[in-house]
């Protein structure tokens, strides 16, 4: 499916993901490990193993230097 993923503060990606792809797969497709970002659908984080079900999401980087 086609998804637009905005990495907050960085680039916006237009992705074509395989059927059944999860939000963890989406993280990898924009270059991040699912352990260092969270995907927001609207304002709400979604579980990493949930199949992608939104056409537009934001990817928020959570892990940077302290």
């Amino acid at each position, binding site marked *: 499916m086609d998804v637009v993923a905005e990495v907050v503060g960085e680039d916006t990606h237009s992705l074509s993901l395989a059927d059944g792809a999860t939000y963890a797969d989406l993280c990898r497709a924009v270059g991040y490990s699912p352990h*260092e970002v*969270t995907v927001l659908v609207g304002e*709400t*984080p979604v579980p990493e*193993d949930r199949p992608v079900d939104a056409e537009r999401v934001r990817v928020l980087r*959570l892990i940077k230097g*302290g």
Partner: protein
Amino acid sequence: MSCDKCGRDAVYHAAYSGAHLCEDHLRASVEKRVRRRVREDGLLPDDATSDDPERWVIGLSGGKDSVALTAILDDTFAEDPRVEMVALSIHEGIEGYRDESLSASEELTEELGVRHETVSYADELGVEMDDVVESDPENMAACAYCGVFRRDLLETYADEFGADKLLTGHNLDDEAQTALMNVLEGDVAQTAKHFDASLGPFDERNESESFVPRAKPLRDVPEKEVALYCRFRGLPAHITECPHASEAYRGEIQQLLLKLEENHPGTRHSIMSGYEEFAAIAADRYRGDERAELSECERCGSTTARDVCRKCRLVESIEAV
């Protein structure tokens, strides 16, 4: 997907345990692990009383980890007369970056009513990190200077404020990285020191009289969960990369661990579980080898194995440029 505990929409999947959690139950789970670690490490000794309370100095950078730690400890112990808490922030002289995180620290401590103290490299050492990275007399990464200075000031001021323990916000990812680095560097002596300095339960450590004992109550919680915790609680945490961040080797280990964790969920937990056991054995083996050689730095009085401590030698080198 629903929360395993209550059936509401899950916001997080912990691949290492298989759990799906909603906002409220992720928060509760993080808090539970911190409280369990405080208990299991024996942070609050049985002889602490309201007349003779235990004093904890918390290293508060204003980043997500130390903010979450301070908030959870305040929730748990603010009303407990056996515990006194002081938050200690260090200003390294990094324009913009540290000013913003200090604002977060001030906002948090005001809101909680926790005593907050700030010391700076400029006042204490006569140096600022923005200048140090420019001159770089030892041809080192910025973090190599900054780590020495920060540890020295945390230690000095924890002692100054009468700390029984110095608590820092290291999370599971930080600790697994350090463990793996020590193993890959073959540094068994460092692993032994790690156990006695901050890793082992207090009743199993060989504590040095020369240092304030340290502990890391957040070290069972993965970094992502700490960040989500701050977001869900609306805590004023400052999440920005230090402009001088340059710990190349740690960055390489971080990426390796993230990859391993994806392919083999639970890797960080199993590294720490094995490393702690290994560190306890190493500490037992190395005890007595070096303790006797510690003395006071002849310039600043900090505890050191040499005549002049590493911090004073670095400051001298910076001043000579």
